[in-house]
C-alpha cells in the first residue's frame, strides 16, 4: 500500500508522462503523413497542371513545401513565372 502510494507520487513527478504525451501527438501526425506518403508530390503535380493551363511554366520552378507549426501547418507554394507571360496568355486565348 505505502509502496504503491510511493510509486504513484514518483510517477507524478517523473518526466515519463510528458514523454508519452509528446510521442503520442507526434506519431499521430507522422502516421497521417505516411498514409498519404506523397501528399506534397500530388499537390505539386495538380498545381502544376492547373497553372500550366494558363501560363507556360518550367516544371522545375514549382516548389511546394509544408511547414508544421504547433497549432497550424502552412503550405507554401512558390511558382516562378517567366517575364512576359501575359503575351503568351493572349496568344493562348
Amino acid at each position, binding site marked *: 500500500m505505502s509502496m504503491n502510494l510511493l510509486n504513484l507520487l514518483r510517477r507524478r513527478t*517523473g518526466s*515519463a508522462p510528458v*514523454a508519452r504525451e509528446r*510521442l*503520442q501527438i507526434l*506519431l499521430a501526425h507522422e502516421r497521417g503523413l505516411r498514409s498519404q506518403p506523397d501528399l506534397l508530390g500530388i499537390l505539386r503535380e495538380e498545381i502544376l497542371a492547373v497553372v500550366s493551363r494558363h501560363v507556360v511554366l518550367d516544371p522545375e520552378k514549382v516548389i511546394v513545401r509544408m511547414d508544421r507549426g504547433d497549432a497550424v501547418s502552412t503550405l507554401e507554394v512558390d511558382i516562378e513565372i517567366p517575364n512576359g507571360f501575359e503575351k503568351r496568355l493572349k496568344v493562348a486565348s
Partner: protein
Amino acid sequence: MAKVLVVTSGKGGVGKTTSTAALGAALAQRGEKVVVVDFDVGLRNLDLIMGAERRVVFDLINVAQGVAKLSQALIRDKRLESLWLLPASQTRDKDALTDEGVRDIIADLRTKFDWIICDSPAGIERGATLAMRYADEAVVVTNPEVSSVRDADRIIGMLDSKTVKAEQGEQIKKHVLITRYDTSRAARGEMLNIDDILEILAVPLLGIIPESQDVLKASNVGSPVTLNNAGSQPARAYIDAARRLSGETVDMVVPTEQRRGFMDRLLGRRAA
C-alpha cells in the same frame, strides 16, 4: 519450415547486434539450426560479438556476387554446432548488395536452416530495407526513450509496406523488444513506461532486456550473453524471448533492481 527474422530499429545503437547474437544463440541452444546474417555492410560487428572475427574469409557480398559459394562464407560457431554466422562485407560500396542477390541468398539459406536472423543496419535507407525485404517476422528493438520509439514506429510502417510479405498483401509478424531498460530510472518515473510504449507502437512485446554490465562483458570476450553468462538477468530475458519466438507462452518478467548483497555493499561493488 524456415523462418526469416529481421532484427531492426531505425535508430542506431539500441541493441540490434547484441540481440541478434543473443537470440540466435538461445534458439540454437534449443536445438534449432540457426544462421545469423550481418547486413551492416561497411560496419560489420556481428562477427566480433560472436567471437568469430578472425575466421572471416568470405562475406555476404562475395556470395551475392558469385565470388564465393555460400558454404565457403558460412562460419560455424565454436561453442554451438547448430549456430552459424554469415558475415557482412567491409566494403565502402553500399550498392554492392542488390535486391536479387539478397533474394537468392535468403532462398538458399531457407533450405538449410530453421531460423535466418538478419541483423539490420541502423537507418531507413537501402541497407535497412534490404535486411527486412524477405523477412517473415520482425523484432523491432527499441529503448524506453522518445527518439528510439519514434524511429521504431517509422520502421513498423516500413515493415508493413516495403517487405515482400506486405506487398503480397500478407501481414509480417512483428514483435517489440525493449532493451537497455534501466530499472532504477524506471522506478523514478524517468523512463517511458512499458505499457505506454506498447500502446503507442501497438505491437506485442517479445521481452524486456535490462541495462546490464553482463552485456558489455559478453561483448568484450566475443560471446553472446546467453552463452557467456546464461544465468544473468539479460541472458534470462533473451532466453525467454527466444522461447516466445518459438511459440511458447512464457510469463513476462519486468526487470527489477537487483539487491546488493552485504559483502558487495561492504566492498562498495556496484550491482550488475
